[in-house]
């Protein structure tokens, strides 16, 4: 049974720029601030919604009205009461201004109202299939109206001492060193949380992070905090547990961007050749430590409507060579701009280069830092690149953005960067999003997957396995589909 008390030491990488989740939603910010702020809903590992700030909800039959009933007795960390006004303010005013991903969701929303202090009603313009998937803390964090209303959100001094409703309160942040959260004694969910405090350690070097775990300085290594090469060794340490759960909601999928607009990669045969040329099993086994699944198409395994009947693409250099020839490739040197997210990704680029060299494709790696990489992708200045993107459990939230032609816009590394444009695909994605009927959606998405798998707009590499490593004595760390992002609500330490 859970016992109260104790402290969790967690690695955070990189150091988040801010913990004000309404302003900054990058992964580390979510990981820490997900314990300070809350959304209306959480999602289990099957992506079913669970209560959070909303204790229950109803959807009207036409799929246009969503009514949320809020928990009672919730207070902000500064003692002010929480109410439906905060939710309306957050969604309609604050996040509309600051949260691009949520802004895209808001496009479907006609009105947000609070009929009473405990109820919030969202009315949509038209049905939007994945709407219920949009209420997780990172997608829609609820922020305190009494602090932000009428201020300049970005420069509000309260940003440095974030105030949420979550199980933990912000205590201290020594930049470059650690962030400390302490138990919220007035948390609405009686008896929780169990831990007294959570320390997030900033350790910029991956090898040092592994050592930190080994020497007992930290107890929890979120996915991605140590290099994949270290996982086996760390996993084998005594009293160490590893889980790949907790990432179902995000469902990160990795692929090679192929610039569909120009150069050899504009040819379908050539793109198919690339997919044949990549030794994805070797990549998974030697670079990603055997974690993850090789996808058959653009939908990650955990994403809804993933078509499990798709034929896998084998590793077949001979076929690749033939296709390269057929494509009319004349030996142009392709520019590979790898994602600079650490050693694994650099190795990945080297293996890709070598795989392609083996079938006669010349590749030159262009090394950049994160900023440069973003720029290259935003400007479409690349032939090949690597990436991984979250799918947020639903193709309409996390998949279509990479393939619909309406999303071909310079300036972002997260949209349809490859420049793939197919009206049929656009229409099918629209159909899939614009209905709440599962069968209708499935039909549309099955058709989309067939087309995409044939045209290979991008070379899908891996549904990434995201291992969270922790001491086995830390219990109930990962209980939901968003994992550590709200993980310490339930966690406790066995004495």
């Amino acid at each position: 049974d859970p016992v109260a008390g104790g402290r969790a030491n967690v690695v955070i990488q990189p150091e988040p720029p801010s913990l004000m989740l309404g302003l900054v939603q990058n992964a580390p910010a979510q990981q820490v601030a997900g314990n300070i702020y809350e959304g209306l809903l959480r999602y289990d590992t099957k992506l079913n919604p669970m209560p959070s700030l909303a204790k229950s909800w109803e959807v009207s039959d036409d799929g246009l009205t969503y009514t949320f009933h809020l928990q009672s007795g919730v207070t902000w960390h500064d003692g002010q009461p929480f109410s439906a006004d905060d939710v309306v303010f957050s969604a309609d005013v604050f996040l509309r201004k600051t949260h691009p991903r949520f802004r895209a969701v808001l496009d479907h929303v006609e009105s947000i109202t609070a009929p009473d202090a405990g109820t919030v009603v969202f009315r949509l313009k038209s049905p939007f299939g994945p709407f219920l998937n949009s209420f997780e803390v990172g997608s829609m964090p609820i922020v305190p109206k009494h602090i932000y209303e009428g201020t300049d959100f970005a420069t509000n001094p309260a940003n440095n001492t974030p105030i949420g409703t979550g199980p933990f309160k912000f205590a201290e942040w020594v930049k470059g060193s650690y962030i400390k959260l302490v138990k919220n004694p007035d948390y609405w969910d009686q008896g929780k949380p169990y831990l007294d405090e959570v320390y997030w350690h900033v350790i910029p070097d991956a090898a040092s992070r592994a050592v930190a775990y080994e020497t007992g300085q930290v107890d929890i290594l979120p996915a991605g905090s140590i290099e994949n090469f270290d996982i086996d060794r760390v996993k084998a340490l005594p009293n160490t547990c590893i889980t790949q759960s907790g990432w179902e909601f995000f469902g990160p999928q990795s692929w090679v961007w192929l610039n569909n607009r120009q150069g050899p990669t504009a040819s379908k045969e050539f793109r198919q050749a690339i997919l044949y040329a990549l030794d994805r099993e070797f990549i998974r086994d030697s670079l990603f430590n055997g974690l993850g699944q090789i996808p058959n198409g653009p939908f990650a395994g955990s994403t809804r409507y993933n078509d499990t009947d798709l034929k896998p693409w084998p590793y077949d250099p001979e076929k690749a060579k033939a296709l390269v020839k057929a494509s009319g490739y004349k030996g142009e040197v392709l520019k590979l701009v790898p994602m600079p997210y650490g050693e694994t990704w650099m190795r990945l680029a080297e293996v890709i280069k070598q795989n392609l060299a083996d079938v006669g494709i010349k590749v030159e790696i262009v090394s950049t830092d994160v900023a440069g990489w973003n720029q290259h992708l935003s400007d479409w200045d690349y032939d090949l690149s690597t990436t991984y993107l979250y799918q947020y459990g639903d193709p309409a939230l996390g998949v279509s953005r990479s393939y619909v032609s309406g999303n071909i816009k310079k300036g972002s590394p997260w949209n349809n960067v490859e420049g793939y444009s197919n009206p049929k695909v656009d229409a099918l994605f629209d159909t899939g999003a614009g209905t709440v009927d599962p069968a209708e959606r499935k039909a549309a998405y099955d058709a989309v997957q067939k087309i995409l798998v044939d045209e290979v707009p991008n070379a899908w590499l891996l549904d990434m396995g995201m291992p969270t490593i922790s001491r086995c004595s830390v219990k109930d760390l990962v209980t939901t589909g968003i994992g550590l992002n709200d993980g310490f609500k339930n966690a406790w330490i066995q004495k």
Partner: protein
Amino acid sequence: MKDFWHRFRANKGGIIGLALLAAIVAVALLAPLLFPGNPWKMVARPFVPPFEGMKFPLGTDTVGRNVAAGLAYGGRVSLLVGLVSTLAALLIGIPVGALAGYFGGRIDDLLMRVTEFFQTVPSFALAIVIVAIFQPSVVSITLAIGIVSWPPVARLVRGEVMSLRQREYIEAAILQGLSTPAIILRQILPNAVSPIIVMASLMVASAILLESSLSFLGLGDPNLMSWGYMIGAARTVIRQAWWLSLFPGVAIVLTVLALNLIGESLNDALNPRLSRRRS
């Protein structure tokens, strides 16, 4: 010349350094013969430990590339970057120093301010920024190293030129009606060459270190195998595969050591104070 060689040979360290460097250069030059193909090729299973078989005497790396091949090819990059960036530094530093030292006065003041500027900005940080801006490639790395390492050359040359300029034979050349460029190029610089050579040999060494540091930080040329890259890449697996960081590290140490030994011997052999005695 014979004299020089005699004095150079007098220093055991110099001979060791020369032999060491010759060996390293030989391996680097012969890399394509010793290891046909390219060093990036994945030739075996990952993490084959060293000394286990004749095929991969130094083992394989994280993705099964031959470490020995990497070392051989890496030597080419290190030596090349060391050499070319030193040349670049000389190309900037010598003219700046020569002009400042020869003309003195306002020109000297101006050029020294510029030099001071480059010495005031932390050089490694500046190198990082330059490489990041121009994107890591041999060219940008070489350039960056050249740019941050010329000020000492300029200062050295300036000092030498200033003192040489006072020499009677330079005044004699002026009186003979030689033009200023001729005096600088044909009279002064050839006589400043010894300390420049000594400094250059040491600069090659520090350029190699600098290149490896940049590569270690991930600012190397991703298309070229280099020692710094190998260590940087091996760092994450230092626990599983110690040899991956050890061998390239040793390679760097040996090369830098060799160059330093040579530099010291050159200094002994070329130092006018030791070589020409007047009582």
